[in-house]
């Protein structure tokens, strides 16, 4: 009983920690993104709220929370209200299986540095990621607005397409690690990160991950100059904020997954595990921002062509080659 309670307490602490870091990071990723984008475009970016605009996320949060929460009259109310939660919650749940350090021993207990070590962790990640599509599609549909609907449909189509490439690109990694558990995958990279042996899978994964998180150059679902704001056109206040948080959490989790699958997860010299993971996440995020600051949005047919005609065949070929190599 005591052990159970202690285990539960530890779990709660871990969840709290992970959520706290995720949300804090999400907030400051926004800030970093705006700031960095500004500089990439020879502007300042936010610089009025606090020094370097550091209080900007807080100001934004206050603004969003105090804004009126508008529900369009013709919207499907229940679904409209739930959709942002789906996006945000699924993104956060994905973080549950990401290991952020080596197992430590606390008061004689083995405490793994992961919220939960599922042996099908990888599948869980993909399952959650697919569920996130619902938030987008339903949000777009329930708004009962043309722009939102178009955005929602685009989002669904895009995420389904890229999910394939995303999943397929990971198969060689699983083949190398011999496990679907993220903890095991990280352990398998004890000697070298998989990026060294799987550069093609890495590139496919990164590109697909950006498409999954609907970021430029893959932001067609929200393409503001065509669709207003796409699937969240009709949202306001904190509900809009939830989409926003979902997107940035998603970005971090994908960053974490990139780290886990290809960059050795929390492993690294000198610094403690969690810090390494954090650094890797941030580096991935910064690169994503850089990409955003550089590349224009793809056309819809280009997007689909890239997914189906380039990434998926490449991923399949990669599987075959890896399979052959492993077999040999």
């Amino acid at each position, binding site marked *: 009983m005591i052990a159970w309670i202690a285990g539960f307490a530890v779990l709660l602490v871990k969840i709290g920690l992970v959520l706290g870091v995720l949300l804090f990071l999400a907030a400051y990723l926004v800030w970093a993104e705006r700031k960095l984008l*500004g*500089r990439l475009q*020879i502007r300042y970016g936010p610089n009025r709220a606090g020094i370097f605009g550091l209080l900007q996320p807080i100001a934004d949060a206050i603004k969003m929370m105090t804004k009126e929460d508008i529900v369009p009259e013709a919207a499907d109310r229940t679904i409209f209200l739930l959709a942002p939660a789906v996006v945000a919650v699924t993104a956060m749940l994905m973080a549950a299986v990401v290991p952020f350090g080596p197992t430590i021993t606390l008061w004689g207990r083995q405490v793994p540095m992961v919220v939960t070590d599922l042996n099908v962790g990888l599948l869980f990640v993909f399952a959650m990621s697919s569920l996130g599509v619902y938030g987008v599609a339903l949000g777009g549909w329930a708004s009962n607005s043309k722009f939102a609907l178009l955005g929602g449909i685009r989002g669904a189509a895009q995420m389904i397409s890229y999910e394939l490439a995303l999943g397929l690109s990971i198969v060689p990694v699983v083949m190398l690690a011999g496990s679907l558990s993220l903890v095991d995958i990280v352990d398998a990279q004890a000697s070298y990160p998989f990026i060294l042996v799987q550069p093609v899978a890495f590139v496919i994964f990164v590109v697909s991950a950006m498409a999954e998180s609907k970021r430029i150059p893959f932001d067609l679902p929200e393409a503001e100059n065509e669709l207003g704001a796409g699937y969240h056109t009709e949202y306001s206040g904190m509900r809009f904020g939830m989409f926003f948080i979902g997107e940035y959490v998603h970005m971090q989790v994908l960053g974490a997954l990139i780290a886990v699958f290809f960059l050795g997860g929390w492993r690294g010299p000198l610094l403690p595990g969690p810090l390494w993971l954090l650094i890797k996440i941030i580096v991935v995020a910064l690169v994503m921002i850089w990409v955003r600051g550089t590349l224009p949005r793809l056309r819809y047919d280009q997007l689909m*062509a890239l997914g189906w005609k380039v990434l998926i065949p490449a991923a399949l070929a990669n599987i075959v080659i890896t399979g052959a190599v492993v077999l040999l």
Partner: protein
Amino acid sequence: MNPDERHYRKLKPVPPQRFRTISEIGEALNALGQGFVTTFRHLFRKPITEEYPEYKRTLPERSRARIVLTRDPDGNERCVACYLCSAACPVSCISMQSAEDDNGRRYARWFRINFGRCIYCGLCEEACPTSAIQLTPQFEHVKREILSMVYEKEDLLVDHSGKDKTYNFYRWAGIRTGDRDKGEHEREDKPVNVRSNMP
């Protein structure tokens, strides 16, 4: 071939471009790389932003902000309350009432612009046949009290001619007013004598 057809022919799908040679792939990657390098370099440049309240630059004369009603070179109100600006205004923020003054001039008895609604598109100025309504570069006139954004004629009328220094509608209109009778306007003949037989 009807015009529509012609149009669609023009839009025939372009055959998809293929990377035929390694060099083309190289070029594409190079271009991509250049883009990244360019943006990366920007990180170390000083931003070109001019920070607004600290630095105020003089706006060009034709910038579109606060609207005024100007006067003609003789110092009379230019606006003849023709309702064209209010018709042109896409947000319907101009209203007025036309009337005739003792001199026979049509003028605005009252004239109101709701700046709380105005989008400073300048269509009113474009529509105005008398150069009366003009947008000025003076853009800092936002107030917290929404009603104080509703400007009446007294608030709008200024003592100059604005951008158009010469035009005077009533000198051309051919309308009989206090200072000009029929035939006394620009490029006008004396009134026809209808009782004369001469051609």
